[in-house]
């Protein structure tokens, strides 16, 4: 759970600054008071949590079906860790990375009650490399509870940044925060890559 939390924390600031600032104008739209903003934000985060639990269940179920042999599970998960963490590192250094949140399109829908929920769903299903890594981790867990905990850790780490969202418009040096967030994401990718390599070497040594 700790490494999922770290991944959530490291990619969370980038997530906030790409997706959070998309949601922010919606939250501040109209004459909504603090209560409305908090309610909408709660719905947005709750939806993300629900979608993550669904993803955790699916990943664990399919992981159980596909990764029947423990050795196969070690090698496949090791390779997936390396591939997805490589994608995470590539995401952090690539100049052609998508600059916008996948949920941006939803904000074109005008002030409807379901918007925070739809935003939450689209945001959770963004399938960025960080989510793919957590899906891999979740698929290789022994029990479904461990699978839930992996997603919960990721949710907790990334959601921390959304809590002060009503203040996000006040961030003056957005570019700096975004840059540091992207670099931290790359570093998290390296950590997971080492984990993947260790998994494979451990698998080879232990036969």
């Amino acid at each position: 759970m700790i490494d999922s939390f770290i991944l959530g924390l490291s990619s969370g600031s980038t997530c906030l600054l790409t997706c959070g600032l998309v949601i922010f104008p919606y939250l501040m739209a109209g004459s909504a008071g603090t209560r409305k903003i908090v309610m909408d934000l709660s719905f947005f985060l709750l939806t993300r949590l629900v979608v993550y639990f669904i993803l955790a269940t699916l990943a664990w179920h399919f992981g159980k079906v596909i990764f029947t042999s423990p050795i196969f599970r070690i090698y496949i998960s090791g390779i997936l860790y390396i591939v997805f963490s490589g994608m995470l590192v590539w995401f952090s250094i690539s100049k052609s990375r998508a600059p916008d949140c996948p949920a941006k399109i939803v904000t074109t829908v005008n002030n409807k009650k379901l918007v925070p929920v739809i935003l939450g769903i689209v945001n959770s299903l963004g399938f960025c490399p960080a989510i793919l890594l957590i899906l891999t981790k979740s698929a290789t867990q022994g029990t479904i509870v461990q699978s839930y905990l992996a997603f919960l850790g990721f949710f907790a780490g990334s959601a921390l940044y959304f809590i002060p969202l009503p203040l996000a418009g006040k961030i003056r040096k957005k570019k700096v925060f975004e840059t540091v967030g992207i670099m931290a994401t790359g570093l998290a990718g390296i950590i997971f890559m080492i984990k993947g390599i260790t998994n494979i070497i451990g698998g080879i040594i232990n036969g």
Partner: protein
Amino acid sequence: MDETIKNQTMKKSFGKSLLYTLPMFLLTFILLTGGKPDFSDRAGTYALLTTFLGLNVLYFLMHFTGKTDKLRAVLFIVFALTLSFTLIKNMVDLRHTMMYSQADILECKMPFCHLVIPMLILPAAFTQSIIYPGSILQGFASISSMVVLWLAASLILGRGFCSWGCFYGGWDDGFSRLRKKRVIRKVNDIWKWMPFAVLLMVAITSALALSPTYCDWICPFKAVTEFEQVTGVESAAKAGIFISLFGGLVVVLPVLTKKRTQCSYLCPLGAINTLSNKVTPFTVKIDRQLCNDCLKCVQVCPMFALTKEDVEKGNVSIFCSKCGKCIDTCPNKAINYGIKGVPAGRMVKFSRNTFLFASFLFIAVFSAGSIITVFKSLFNLFI
């Protein structure tokens, strides 16, 4: 313009330079001898006197020549080399090897260095515990003494600590001076934010794992101080990372770019020190009336602290480590040490004298111990 440049020169006459050196002479003598000079040991006495005279000659020359960076670099590099020697000597005396074992960790025998400080903050705040396996008050390089020294230096010098106090900075500073011309000329400016990402990661991982993850996995200076005994795949991987990062960021890239790449791209304490530049009263100022936008300062800055935009605005960025290289390089003497709140071009000599006194006194006292140890070992070979 020429008359103004002449007025701005920092050179002093021989007598005036001696006069400015006198307070440093007295203070370093008192601090190096502890107020009670003991000349009973011949090698120790020679080492003390050589160090004492060497330090004061450097300080005298800073006033006499008006130059800062090259003279600072001499002491800074000597400090880095002698400290590594002293550390290794202590390790070998105590353990007969540079490697430390799990037993050393359990017995809290690890010497503490300032790079660990960013990893201590969150665990100390949330668990009221120090996660580093070193001694808090006693012995060689205790945690409390190092934290107090770093805090005091950062409050006074800001990121100046990275060029006047850090006992590792001299390594990449030294390697960045080996070539006359840069091989890699264009480096993306964005990488200077990397230490903040490293800081974020090591602060979080240390708090969650309750162990100093930077020391465990990343620190390049493990290669020249102490490292974990290689007992398996994990410790071998760690040793590989330490050596690769030392080779890449401390040796190869500084030689190729003429920049201090380890300090600029990796060091998490450097990120905190960057923020401390907001607190310190000292800064570096660009006098726009004298500047002709030749941008030589941007080229020579080893810490990526100057950009064209900064020069146009007349300010250095928060990444400045006050090494003095841009000041010495500027052909128009448009760049000088300054004090916040005082306009550029005013109180220039007072600002430089005050900053030099504070920063040199710090590095002199901080470095003297390890320099004396090395000289003493050398003299012992001959006496």
